[in-house]
């Protein structure tokens, strides 16, 4: 991944570079749900709530401080704290899977409605007007820490986003290989057994959920910075369902899956958007349905299985889910 990242700006044009930057930012978002749902077993339909919260936190802070370093840090911290709060109510209330999905989804939609109704001069944070459904345009983009006048250009931004993606990917691998990560996966496999073995199930779920929230917030910050724009659409149902589709298509219980799913679907969405052949929602809905009914494991686990069968050995059972 790192090798591709270094070579790419020499080969593609400006437009391609911007496309790749946003794809990479979205891959980070996909990873955040991939770890919460695929490894933590937490059905979170509200990943876009943290994503959007990160984007708005970045926007508001960067406008107020006219500097991006603190804004970036806050765009991770605020969604993580919100995830921790929400997670406390959900996990310590011992809500089951399906309720989690619905609650997180509802939270996202309420954010969507809330931000849409913040039009007008009354709704401002410091010097930043929230602007309701029109969104907040011309945000300050990322600058070199400590030097607000020195903004990153598109190539530097691309390197930065790719570096963040690699760091998040490697970091999550390390996290999942650690003792903490193994307990999280064990909880996904059998919650009661873990509890009987003396692990605090609620705390572990809360922590992995919080980490996922922080990563999604970071992705949101990169997204807001990419277009120098943020609107309530970051909380929309379309956004939320896209994240779910990436993970479903790529495959649960892998880290590579969400990235691949995200790339495929983003590419498809861009293509559909430019060609106007068919409505994007229609195609995405059909793909979503087809995967749930026909390829419920997703691409990466299914291909791995197929590969293993062709080579003639039993499928590897590492950190992948049993079913």
């Amino acid at each position, binding site marked *: 991944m790192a090798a591709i990242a270094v070579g790419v700006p020499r080969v593609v044009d400006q437009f391609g570079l911007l496309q790749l930057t946003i794809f990479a930012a979205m891959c980070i978002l996909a990873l955040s749900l991939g770890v919460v749902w695929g490894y933590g077993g937490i*059905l979170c339909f509200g990943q876009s709530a943290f994503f959007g919260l990160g984007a708005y936190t970045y926007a508001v802070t960067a406008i107020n401080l006219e500097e991006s370093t603190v804004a970036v840090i806050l765009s991770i911290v605020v969604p993580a704290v919100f995830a921790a709060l*929400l997670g406390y*109510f*959900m996990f*310590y*209330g*011992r*809500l089951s*899977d*399906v*309720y989690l*999905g*619905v*609650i997180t*989804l*509802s*939270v996202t*939609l*309420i954010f*969507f*409605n*809330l931000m849409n*109704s*913040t039009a007008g001069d009354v709704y401002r944070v410091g010097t930043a007007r929230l602007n309701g459904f029109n969104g907040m345009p011309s945000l300050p983009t990322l600058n070199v820490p400590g030097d607000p006048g020195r903004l990153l250009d598109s190539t530097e931004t691309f390197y930065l986003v790719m570096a963040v993606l690699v760091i998040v990917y490697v970091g999550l691998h390390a996290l999942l290989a650690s003792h903490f990560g193994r307990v999280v996966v064990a909880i996904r496999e059998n919650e009661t057994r873990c509890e009987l073995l003396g692990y605090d199930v609620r705390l572990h779920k809360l922590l992995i959920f919080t980490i996922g929230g922080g990563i999604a917030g970071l992705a949101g910050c990169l997204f807001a910075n990419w277009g120098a724009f943020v609107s309530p659409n970051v909380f*929309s*149902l379309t956004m939320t*369902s896209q994240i*779910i589709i990436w993970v*479903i298509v790529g495959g649960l219980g892998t880290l590579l899956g969400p990235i691949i799913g995200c790339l495929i679907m983003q590419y498809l969405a861009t293509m559909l958007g430019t060609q106007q052949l*068919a*409505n*994007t*929602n*229609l*195609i*995405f*809905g*059909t*793909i*979503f*349905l087809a995967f*749930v*009914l026909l390829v*419920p494991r997703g691409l990466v686990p299914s291909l791995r299985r197929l590969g293993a069968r062709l080579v003639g050995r039993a499928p590897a059972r590492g950190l992948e889910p049993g079913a």
Partner: protein
Amino acid sequence: MDLAAVLTIEVLSGIAGLALISIGLAIIFGMMRVINLAHGEFMMLGGYAAIVATNHGVDIWISMLVVAPIVVGVIGVIAERTIIRFLYGRMIDTLLATWGLSLFFIGIVTTIFGNISAGIRAPLGSVAVGRYNISVYRLVLIGITAMIFGAIFIVLRRSRLGLIARGTMENPNMAAALGVSPSRVYATTFGIGAALTGLAGGLLAPISGILPTVGAAYVAKAFITVISGGTAILAGTLAAAGLFGSVNQLLTYFTTPVIGEAGLLAVAILLLRVLPHGITGKLFRGSL
């Protein structure tokens, strides 16, 4: 005094609205344990059915009360037969499949009608209460919602259909042994739930207008109401709608709609922290 009357009607209207948008979902979830994420889109389809019928010269009451539920009920049965029946018992997969379905419906409707809002005029005009004007249609909606709940209660409690449905949900194998076809009961129940959702969509179309993506505006509130209500379909939905509707309308009146919505959510999350199985998980157990 006028203010008190108007406020009471506002609160009642808020409660009826929540109950109306939730009841179809509550039936499908309560009876079949299927969480229908295409619920908002069923409402949207009901709204379009009512508007299209009215624009083609059908009487507005017939298009809202008859056309909308029939159209959406038929769509619901088709969806159940082609998709959902393969996924019974796999709650998360049904959740995801109905989500796919919801995107699919949004896509189809956008392709047909375009991404613009449509609407019909609310019938009946308004009536003066002291210094305030109240839409008669809102009053009628409260009445219709009460009638729907009454009808569902009677069907579930007193009729043979309701008995068969409740029996099948309780124990499908036993019902099958007694000569009932569970798959037919599932399809019917899903169809009825969808039809009620379509009815709600049709009835609310004159108030809120309709867009291909309007479902998102309803679905969150409907889910919160049903989940907070708990297992009992009617009592749970009514209790939760009563609580959230009052909180929402009163906060909206005294502050802004934004705070009203946020307040609704905050109350719901606190409630689920205290009562994880919803209101009827603890209180009014055994009611319908």
